[in-house]
């Protein structure tokens, strides 16, 4: 069954056929053979891709959304449904914490009108103060954090709805 996936903002059409001891994967029509070892070495699976030996760590962010670590590179993989969801998130401008930290200051309130680039929250981490700004114009629709809160990476800070 053909599926559309996004790898680092590039689209690919893939089809996976599971055989007895390996996978046959067609990528945009091009065939590849992958042999996967079930044993994980510190989180890494051994994959022989067309004979090339690679160690891959795959972390599931949510259904259909994965982060692949191969060597020192991290690639984001999204299957179609997850991609649509992510795109929807962006139009609502969900602003999340780029790193773990402490909410040092909340500069806006619910229903405030904000403009692109406007500082929303100040996040303190590693002796640095980071300004988290609005990516679009709009109205503050959600503000689930307070001054003094500790947040983890990816935690929702502000949701901005475009003023229509």
């Amino acid at each position, binding site marked *: 069954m053909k599926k559309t996936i996004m790898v680092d903002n590039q689209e690919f059409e893939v089809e996976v056929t599971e055989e007895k001891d390996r996978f046959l994967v067609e990528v945009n029509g091009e065939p590849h053979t992958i042999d996967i070892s079930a044993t994980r070495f510190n989180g890494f699976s051994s994959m022989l891709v067309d004979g090339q030996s690679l160690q891959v760590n795959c*972390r599931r962010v949510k259904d259909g959304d994965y982060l692949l670590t191969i060597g020192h590179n991290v690639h984001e993989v999204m299957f179609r449904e997850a991609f649509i969801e992510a795109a929807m998130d962006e139009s609502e401008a969900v602003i*999340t914490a780029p790193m773990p930290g402490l909410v040092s200051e909340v500069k806006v309130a619910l229903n405030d009108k904000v403009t692109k680039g406007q500082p929303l929250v100040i996040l303190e981490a590693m002796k640095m103060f980071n300004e988290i700004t609005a990516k679009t114009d709009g109205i503050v629709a959600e503000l689930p954090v307070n001054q003094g809160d500790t947040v983890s990476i990816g935690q929702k800070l502000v949701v901005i709805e475009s003023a229509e």
Partner: protein
Amino acid sequence: MFKKILIANRGEIALRIIRACREMGIEAVAVYSDVDRDSLHVRFADEAYHIGEAQPDKSYLNFDKIIDAVRKSGADAIHPGYGFLAENHRFAARCEEEGIPFIGPASKTMALVGDKISARQTVGKTDAPMIPGMTTESRDFAEFEKFAKQIGYPVLLKASMGGGGKGMRVAHSPDELKKAIEFGRKEAQSAFGDDTVYIEKYIQEPRHVEVQILADHHGNVIHLFERECSIQRRYQKIVEESPSPALDDETRRKMGEAAVKIAKIVDYRNAGTIEFLLDKDKKFYFLEVNARIQVEHPVTELVTGRDLVKMQIAIASGEKLTWRQEDIVQNGHAIEVRVYAEDPDNNFMPSPGLVEYLVEPCGPGIRLDSGIYQNFTIPLNYDPIISKLIVWAEDRDGCIERMKRALKEYRIVGVKTTLKLLKQIMEDERFKSGDYTTHFLEKFSLYDDEIDMNKIAAIAAVSEKITPKIHASKGETEGIKSKWKLINRMRALQK
């Protein structure tokens, strides 16, 4: 000899000192803050004491809490490591008052060399070359101006009590100098609590070469040759190596002798480093004295085959330095890279958090001084250093190849790291040639590895098959926004 040493530090250096203690049959006492309970140094120590909240001034920088832990544990000496209280002369003085041996120089020496102007005054009494500049302070702009004219523009304004580039400004004219002094004083006051500034001739395209020294309490001083530390980002060293590719034997010998003279005149004791700058004509000038064991000490240890930390402990307990200068030789080549939990694709934003998976390099010539382990959460309250990877080989080219190999083996999943940047530095032609200055990273741009995207897509397609069934991610929902990567990288490396 000491029976028990309290290490007033954390992370990889605390672990380093614990290992030295172990090899000498000395008990090692660790101290930890609220967020460091799970740290490696707590796990490896013989005893561990909680000393307070995460904030450094409530724990690792807190004199009373440290002294208190010494009393509780019955430790008979303190090793301050590097950073934190290591160069705090007031803490060293407090230890002297309390009768607790401080493994380092005397407090009066630390006070002398910690003040750059007084250090220059004292070193000026030797024949060691110094950067032309002021050796007394002044509040009179006319004096600054006269000096600048004398030594010639451009000049560099520096904070006397400072480091790390804070308060430093280049001035090319009297007008710029006036502004530099004004802003420099403000920055120095805010960063160091002292607004004393002075000027030196600005050395263009310098190389940073430092010499390791050891001095005992019986007047014996030796040097253990040099380390080249020119590869820096915002005054933070990233790569260090020894021998320095910039030096010929004659200069090396002269620098070593100058370093010993400087150590003697400031009455230095224990381990220290004399920093020099090399100009484009390979002339060297005294910069400052670092009164501590340094982050990059393993480079010297691998090239000379000597354990500096164990010798620090021996010296502090009163033993004589038995190593003779003529016995210290440089053998082979060593390179150290510092691995930080920072995102080089996003302006080196600190990236603390959970180390989900870790694969560490091993094999011939590899030394890894690391503060992390798989499943460890790197706290956000301190310096985001993950580890130091130090590699030794018979010659420089072999060392670079070995370092590339080691970096390739090193995998960290869960936090962003500077591993990719380090690998690319090792692959750089200019680095390979050995002909680089402190401006190296400014001209350096991070590039994307050549990747066969079709292969990645194939792996991606089967990724569901290799993901553990139940895995609630802590939330790395940040996708990669590639078009901003290049801009951020360039910006970050040009600072």
